[in-house]
């Protein structure tokens, strides 16, 4: 979706004001720790995936998204995921008290402290084979399709319609657009280099690299 999260190229957001590296704590408040830990612990139940999580955060109202602290966005995203998965009700969220218990087989998935290390070390690889033929090779010039997608996508608005050169092929990975809808399908993933000047004007001398799935791409249209 063309939501508030899709920030590439937005102006007027002010200075970055980074905290000095040697002074910045990992967390800035106790509640941030709990929000992070709770989000990961609840995610380990396996009731949603990384793309549904991202989509839940992207759906926040733009005013809220842009003014929230990042862990607040995680917290609200987690609430959305729990409601969408029928694990908690809106009433329970408001009261903080349980109205109805969840099924026992879900409770059995609860992660215990001694399981954490192995789960984090294992991670969740995103490579997934596909039968669809690979259409492009390193060196090919491709154009990012123009599209709008009310759901989740990982093709930022700023790159759609632009052409670049394939620099690397990463194999077939889970396609986020489908994954956010609960469909696990693979699609060929490429790293593509774009000329910054073609996107942002001649003052931008950089090369911009993006990872883009085959579904987003077409052969460069001859101009």
């Amino acid at each position, binding site marked *: 979706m063309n939501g508030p*999260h*899709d920030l*590439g190229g*937005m*102006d007027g*957001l002010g200075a*970055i004001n*980074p905290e000095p*590296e040697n002074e910045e704590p*990992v*967390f800035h*408040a*106790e*509640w941030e720790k*709990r*929000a*992070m*830990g*709770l989000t990961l*612990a*609840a995610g380990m139940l396996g009731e949603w995936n990384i793309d549904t999580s*991202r989509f839940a*955060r992207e759906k926040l*109202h733009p*005013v809220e998204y*842009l003014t929230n602290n*990042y862990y*607040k966005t995680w*917290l609200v995203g*987690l609430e959305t995921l729990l409601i969408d998965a029928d*694990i*908690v009700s809106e009433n329970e*969220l*408001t009261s903080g008290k349980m109205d109805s*218990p*969840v099924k026992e087989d879900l409770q059995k998935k609860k*992660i*215990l*402290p001694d*399981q*954490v290390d192995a789960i*984090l070390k294992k*991670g*969740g*690889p*995103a490579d997934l084979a596909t039968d669809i033929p690979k259409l492009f090779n390193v060196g090919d010039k491709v154009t990012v399709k123009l599209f709008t997608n009310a759901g989740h996508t*990982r093709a*930022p608005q700023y790159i759609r319609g632009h052409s670049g050169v394939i620099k*690397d092929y990463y194999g077939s*990975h889970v396609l986020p657009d489908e994954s956010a809808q609960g469909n696990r399908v693979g699609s060929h*993933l490429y790293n593509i280099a774009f000329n*910054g000047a073609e996107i*942002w004007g001649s003052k931008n001398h*950089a*090369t*911009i*690299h*993006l*990872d*883009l799935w085959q579904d987003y791409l077409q052969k460069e249209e001859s101009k």
Partner: protein
Amino acid sequence: MSDTHSHDHDHTEPPSDPVLRVKALESLLIEKGLVDAKTIDTIIETYETKVGPRNGAKVIARAWTDPEFKQWLLKDATAAIASMGYMGRQGEHMKVIENTDDSHNLVVCTLCSCYPWTVLGLPPVWYKSAPYRARAVSDPKGVLAEFGTNLPEKVNISVWDSTSEVRYLVLPQKPAGTDGWNAEQLEPLVSRNSMIGVELAKIPEQLENEI
């Protein structure tokens, strides 16, 4: 909830104060038998004390001193980094990009906050902030200047927008004045910011000033 925007639903909102809100949600999920408070403690402790940018600094310092390892790192970063024990969540697919005399790399995630947790830990606030995510792609030179990094004109800047599950780690240039230093000596020169690409690795004089 502010009244500067309207929602398409009319239920009572959870408390707006995140402190109360996260407390309420945690106790609700504990009551439902879905999370264990000690599991949350363990996750927090992992990212406060075990998984952080010192992991990445060890990888870089080794690459600076071990040419064979460096070649492996540039060819198959996931395996090379895993050989040092750093693997898993948000580091499942790693790629290392090397800075040289005429090319500099900068990593961003314009769409969210993708970051190589296994080697850098959790991202700093600025990395997740809207102005960084917005301008790293449209004005990378200006962004670097905000970090005090001004590169010679001849240096080409490459920006890596982390749009997939591939995570990028910058291999900074080994600073001048460190000939003959071993990996252990070099490690403190590898700042977190140099591995994101907003700064260069520290020079020995900077280290002396910090002590």
